[in-house]
């Protein structure tokens, strides 16, 4: 009804598989735009309640202090077929909410790090985060009008990226472009998992014990 999908009776074994990809990056880099460009539903917003105690006290320029204790993340959905659904989650842009990502990142298939060449440093936090967690990611340079186009290799160097990390240019407003970014993420994830299988289970990222490593 709500999203026009039909419902049939089935057993638990036939329940759909759900996967998620995160879309991260600096403030205003185009995360919501990208999610909206490929999602079959309008980008939805959901709010996660934060306790005041858990909220860092740093002040962020341009972000007015709010008395509410919620933060929004937006998400979209792509139904691959009736038994396979891909969810997209745009992470909150403000770095002070980074701790929300732990929940978002748990079990993620992969991630998009959107970057703006005028503010490359804004994507450092996201890149560090996914590297540390062993979550496969693609860096997508959102080509804002008026921004100088940089060759992909220049961006890779500036971001000090591993050679295997895909870097590509995109226009987050374009459905095909956004779709290609997602394909890159899944292909990278496929490649990464094939490698992990070849190297054995010891190569698995330390996602489940984040406290034991720096």
């Amino acid at each position, binding site marked *: 009804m709500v999203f026009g999908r039909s419902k049939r009776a089935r057993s638990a074994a036939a329940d759909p598989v759900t996967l998620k990809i995160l879309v991260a990056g600096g403030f205003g880099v185009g995360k919501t735009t990208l999610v909206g460009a490929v999602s079959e539903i309008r980008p939805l917003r959901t709010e996660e309640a934060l306790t005041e105690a858990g909220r860092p006290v740093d002040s962020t320029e341009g972000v007015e202090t709010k008395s509410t204790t919620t933060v929004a993340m937006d998400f979209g959905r792509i139904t691959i077929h009736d038994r*396979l659904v891909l969810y997209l989650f745009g992470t909150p842009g403000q770095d002070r909410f980074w701790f929300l990502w732990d929940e978002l990142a748990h*079990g993620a298939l992969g991630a998009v790090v959107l970057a703006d060449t005028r503010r490359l440093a804004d994507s450092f936090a996201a890149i560090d985060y996914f590297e540390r967690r062993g979550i496969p990611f693609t860096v997508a340079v959102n080509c804002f009008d008026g921004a100088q186009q940089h060759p992909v290799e220049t961006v890779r160097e500036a971001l000090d990226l591993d050679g295997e990390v895909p870097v590509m240019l995109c226009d987050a407003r374009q459905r095909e472009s956004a779709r290609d970014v997602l394909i890159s993420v*899944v292909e990278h994830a496929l490649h990464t998992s094939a490698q992990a299988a070849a190297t054995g289970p010891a190569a698995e990222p330390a996602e489940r014990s984040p406290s034991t490593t720096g």
Partner: protein
Amino acid sequence: MTDRWFDDAAGPVVRPYAMTRGRTRSTAGDAERLDLIALVIADEPATGSRGAGREPRPDPAPPAPAPAGDGRVLGRRTVALDTIDPMDPVDPPPVARREPGNAPDAGEAADGEAEDPLDDAALAPEHIEIVKLCRAADLSVAELATELDLPVGVVRVLIGDLLEAGLVRVTRPVPPAELPDVSILREVINGLRAL
């Protein structure tokens, strides 16, 4: 909704807090947090021997009156008052466990219309809304939070109630690293290409 649930000091926290009776964790057996992309599945209620329950066709019988009138007021108010307002005379019963044949008005279902377990005053309107949404289509925890315009944490608690009551079940998303076979990722790639 009455304004007295809100004040400047307590703010918007009051409604979710009241709805969950101050609980921040689901009471459902497994303590694990419900994943944002866990699907909540509510199968259609049993409809006796008619065998046509899957089709959302117009029902000749008058619509079940349950959640609308008293249920709505009772649901939210009693739950809310239980925690917030000691003056409230009504004691909220716990969410009833679904037990077929144990319904109080089982006799009235003799006309072939099976009792819908949603006709239960112990369910808050939000509980009922979740079940109804999920009967129409499987929805993830995140989608439900959006649909109900409630924080994810609150929705988790409500889903926990419904799990306990046997009204819904949830899928347990498999982390990609544990996917039984990578062909699923190929399916995703092919599906995206076809967009």
